[in-house]
């Protein structure tokens, strides 16, 4: 997919003017956000479970090599294979080769952010294999030719009307010639169209929420049941997952599952949580005979031991997106790639480079809500600050910003000069503010004053009041 992350500002402007998107984003608060609040209130142990979930992942990350090797051994024991892939290109090629080995013409897919990250669909299509997304949201954006705009609700930006348009356009060839206006009818139509695709597919590709080292299972979590149909009906099941998805035991997966659905959709538990290991056993009447786990690094190992290691605890619940004022204003597409919101602002620079993604860690008010709601206790604002530091160190910002920061840092280290300049500035701004106490234009700060007024300073500075004992 085309990466538009460097154009974040322009993307954000477009997003603010997009009425449909703004309507969808307005629903987030009453939807995901409110439901998460209810679900967490209902479970008194929620905070303690988050602490445990965090400790599990910290333990795993500290011993990641050990757990990966043990997971691999158990997959093999269950009759499956593990394919280690250093980067996106290698993972794409491995999946393609596995599809070819299976003689596949088409592959059904259940939603996987890793598949988005490695741009798997384009690769399969380019080599004559039809990828079919089966998660309803992911199917809708596949028809629309768009990337996901939310990590758990990929078509959140689409209205019912625009979905109806897409279905009319793409489903006529299956004999659906009536436009449906009700969400339930649209869902039923998609169910019928996709049902035959499940049976036709030679390969089913799923992601994984967890890889369980204890017994070689991979865990999928869905509400629709599409991950199950995707993996049970074709003869080959390919799982694509990144390294950090491994957990030690079924108990550890369970602890994290208790905070996952509640944080994501505000459900007590998703409709389907499925543990799959290897191919069908002797005597089984269904299930795939071949089971492959494509284990992707793609920059994760480089995060270990450094300031971004904590990001590897992320379980992709989307709570940070749902509670972020920036995401809530501009939606996911503005971020220009696969991951959006606060988790995207931290992960994207790691995966595509700070040169392309420098805008993202700057798109934050540092209000801290993301960290507050993160069930894995990831210090997202702190990590965005780390990226800003790196951006500064590598001289990526415009000269004016760098000069401003350098000046500010000099004054911050010289309190007397700071006080003098602050008094001078306050006096000047006070004069500029005039009678209505608003500043509508300020040289060098048009980025602020173009869209809003700056209130004129009133009276003395905070430091002066503090010194005078007015606390």
């Amino acid at each position, binding site marked *: 997919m085309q990466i538009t992350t460097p154009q974040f500002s322009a993307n954000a402007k477009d997003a603010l003017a997009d009425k449909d998107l703004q309507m969808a984003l307005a629903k987030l608060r009453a939807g995901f956000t409110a439901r998460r609040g209810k679900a967490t209130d209902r479970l008194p142990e929620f905070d303690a479970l988050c602490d445990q979930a965090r400790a599990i992942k910290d333990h795993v990350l500290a011993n990641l*090599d050990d757990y990966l090797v043990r997971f691999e051994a158990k997959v093999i024991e269950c009759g499956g294979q593990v394919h280690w892939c250093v980067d996106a290109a290698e993972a794409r090629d491995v999946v393609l080769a596995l599809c070819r080995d299976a003689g596949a013409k088409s592959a059904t897919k259940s939603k996987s952010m890793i598949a988005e990250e490695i741009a798997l669909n384009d690769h399969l299509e380019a080599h004559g294999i039809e990828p079919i997304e089966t998660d309803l949201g992911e199917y809708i954006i596949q028809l629309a030719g768009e990337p996901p705009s939310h990590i758990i609700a990929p078509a959140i930006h689409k209205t019912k009307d625009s979905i109806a348009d897409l279905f009319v356009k793409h489903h006529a060839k299956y004999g659906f010639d009536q436009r449906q206006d009700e969400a339930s009818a649209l869902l039923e139509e998609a169910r019928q169209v996709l049902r035959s695709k499940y049976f036709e597919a030679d390969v089913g590709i799923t992601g994984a929420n967890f890889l369980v080292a204890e017994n070689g299972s991979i865990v999928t979590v869905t509400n629709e049941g599409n991950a199950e149909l995707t993996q049970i009906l074709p003869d080959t099941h390919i799982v694509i997952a990144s390294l950090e998805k491994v957990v030690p035991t079924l108990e550890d997966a369970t602890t994290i599952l208790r905070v996952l659905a509640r944080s994501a959709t505000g459900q007590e538990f998703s409709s389907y949580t499925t543990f799959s290991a290897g191919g069908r056993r002797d005597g089984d009447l269904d299930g795939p005979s071949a089971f492959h786990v494509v284990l992707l690094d793609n920059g994760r190992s480089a995060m270990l031991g450094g300031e971004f290691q904590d990001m590897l605890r992320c379980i992709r619940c989307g709570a940070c997106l749902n509670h972020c004022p920036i995401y809530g204003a501009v939606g996911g597409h503005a971020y220009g790639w696969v991951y959006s919101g606060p988790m995207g602002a931290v992960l994207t620079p790691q995966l595509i480079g700070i040169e392309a993604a420098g805008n993202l860690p700057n798109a934050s008010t540092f209000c801290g809500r993301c960290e507050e709601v993160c069930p894995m206790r990831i210090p997202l604002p702190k990590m965005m600050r780390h990226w800003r530091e790196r951006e500064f160190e590598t001289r990526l910002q415009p000269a004016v910003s760098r000069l401003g920061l350098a000046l500010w840092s000099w004054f911050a280290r010289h309190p007397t000069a700071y006080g003098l300049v602050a008094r001078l500035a306050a006096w000047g701004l006070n004069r500029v503010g005039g009678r209505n106490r608003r500043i509508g234009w300020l040289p060098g700060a048009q980025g602020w004053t173009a869209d809003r007024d700056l209130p004129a300073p009133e009276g003395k500075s905070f430091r002066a009041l503090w010194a005078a004992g007015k606390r």
Partner: protein
Amino acid sequence: MSSRERILGAVRTGLEGRAEGRDPVAVEARLATHARGLIPARSQLDARGRLDLFIAMAEEVSTSVTRVSEMAEVPAAIAGYLAEHNLASAAKIAPDPVLDAIPWSKAPLLELNRGKGEDADRVSITCAFAGVAETGTVMALSGPHHPTTLNILPETHVVVLRADQIVGAYEEAWDRLRNSGRGTPRTVMLITGPSRSGDIEQTMQLGAHGPKRLHLVIVDDES
């Protein structure tokens, strides 16, 4: 160097920067003991309480429940449910000795076929390995007696469950699985209500790709 060696090498190099918590003995012990984490107090009840919680949580996610007092009442309960909802009386039934032992002739209108799920099946009947009261969840294990397709292809999935199969928390079900001696099944499904999707304008609709209805028949010998 293989990709496997490169990745493991990179992981080890990275971890040299943060040595705390690195502990092969703890890894071994964790996998051997599979210690439980915090278990929510809500699920720690006596058998009666567990059954009540299980039913309440199941109904909350649109699972429907019928209670009967013995296996012999199951056929009439299922036939009654299907008739009440205007559903086909033909069902695909799991090839399970427990189901085979049920006197189906008591519901002569039910037309049963044994086997795995197929596209044409409208109704399926299976047992389950356990019920989890915490969230009203049914745990289904794949195996010769329980094809996974029956859980997911038909529009209506009917599950026959004995009350003594209901545990409080998921962890109790994991222990029952380990103690059953059947090893790791190909598929373990935790099913919490019928299939649903919120992908159209964030409004939850039932019946996405899996069953539109999940019905439990709970056999409670004590009642």
